[in-house]
């Protein structure tokens, strides 16, 4: 994977390990939610749409991230060139 910079993955990684649900206040306060079947179906469609959007956005971030990382490397190299002392200057004639 490391040697294939043009592989831009837009998949959502591994299979979910727990039930996928929208995070709400009720869920965080451990209150049970009851939903009708039609609501569940609508939510499933919405979840699929959202997941596709997330995968696309994650994929779109690949190239900017690589550019940012390489820019950082270039700037560190530039600072090394500017500020690392090359060789100790020889002191001559007692100066």
């Amino acid at each position, binding site marked *: 994977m*490391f040697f294939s910079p043009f592989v831009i*993955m837009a*998949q959502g990684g*591994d299979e979910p390990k727990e039930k996928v649900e929208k995070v709400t206040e009720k869920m965080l306060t451990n209150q049970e939610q009851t939903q009708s079947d039609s609501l569940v179906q609508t939510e499933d469609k919405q979840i699929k749409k*959202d997941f596709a959007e997330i995968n696309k956005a*994650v994929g*779109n971030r690949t190239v*900017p*991230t690589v550019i940012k990382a390489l820019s950082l490397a270039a700037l560190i190299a530039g600072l090394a060139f500017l500020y690392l002392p090359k060789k100790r200057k020889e002191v001559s004639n007692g100066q």
Partner: protein
Amino acid sequence: MDNNEDTTEKKWSMKDFNYPVPAHAKQFGYAVGGVTFVGFILLIITGIVMTFFFTPTVNKAHDSVLELSSTSWGLWLRSFHRWLAETVIFLIILHLTRIIFTGSYRGSRKSNWFFGIGLMIIAFASLFTGTVVKWDQEGYEAYRHLVEQVDLLPIIGAPISASIQGATVVMRMFVTHTLVLPLLFLLLLIPHLVLMKLNGLSPLPGKKVTKEIKLSIHIRRIFGWSFVIYGFISYLAMQFPTVLYPGPYTGVEMTKPPWILLVTYQFENWFGVRYLSVVPLLMIVGLILLPYIDSKKDDYSITRKIVVWSYIVIMAIFITMIINIAISPPVQHLGG
């Protein structure tokens, strides 16, 4: 009228604040700390404006960010804030690099080095909490990782973990992001600046300070660079607006952290979520020990060379890891 009292009284004028500094203060490497400071001020301003439009509750946080992003100026504001945050972190790393390359943590500057490390930690914490508060998929996944890490802490882990869970989580993260961390930042920034004034600008390695310039020239350079850098960032914010992911959904892990935190993600991939904090902790310990390891004033010592080259190698490894993770698909770490 006591004449003696009159003559000993110091009259301050603007000229007293325009004291001489070494000529290399004009260089970007020596202005980068100041440019970072300007970025911090811009982050505060843009952050304050955004608070007027943000609702810090679990059910409404995401919608309020979405609503702000629905207007072109709101999208620019949010994007500019995010780009600024990343740029400030970027500049902090450059500032740190310059200090390591010039050995400016030695001698009397040691205490200021520690304040600098504290500021850097707060900056990273701000980036993290800022990611969480928007409460999209990325924010929620970041939050879940935080809970996992806090749970690992002995004794204090359980009460802290309890305090950051529940329906008030967004509010608490919001207060941390907008109040606690900026105040801590200012608290450490004041001694950082005072000590910088007392110690003076660090010298260029292997060179003696001969020429001097007025402080106003140094400040003008800082503002000049700031206009160029943040002007460009403003343009980038318009051209490449920051993404607000949908969600959040529990039970899945689909996003990756902000690019600079991808090193931790690599370790998470290798060793699991328990080891997520290993790299940041090792880095902090290493940076704290640095002035004790490399304490000699000699710019050409073997220790100096080892420190500098170790830093370069570590940064090269980190950048390689970031690129590797960027081109790899997201991995599910939580909930296993």
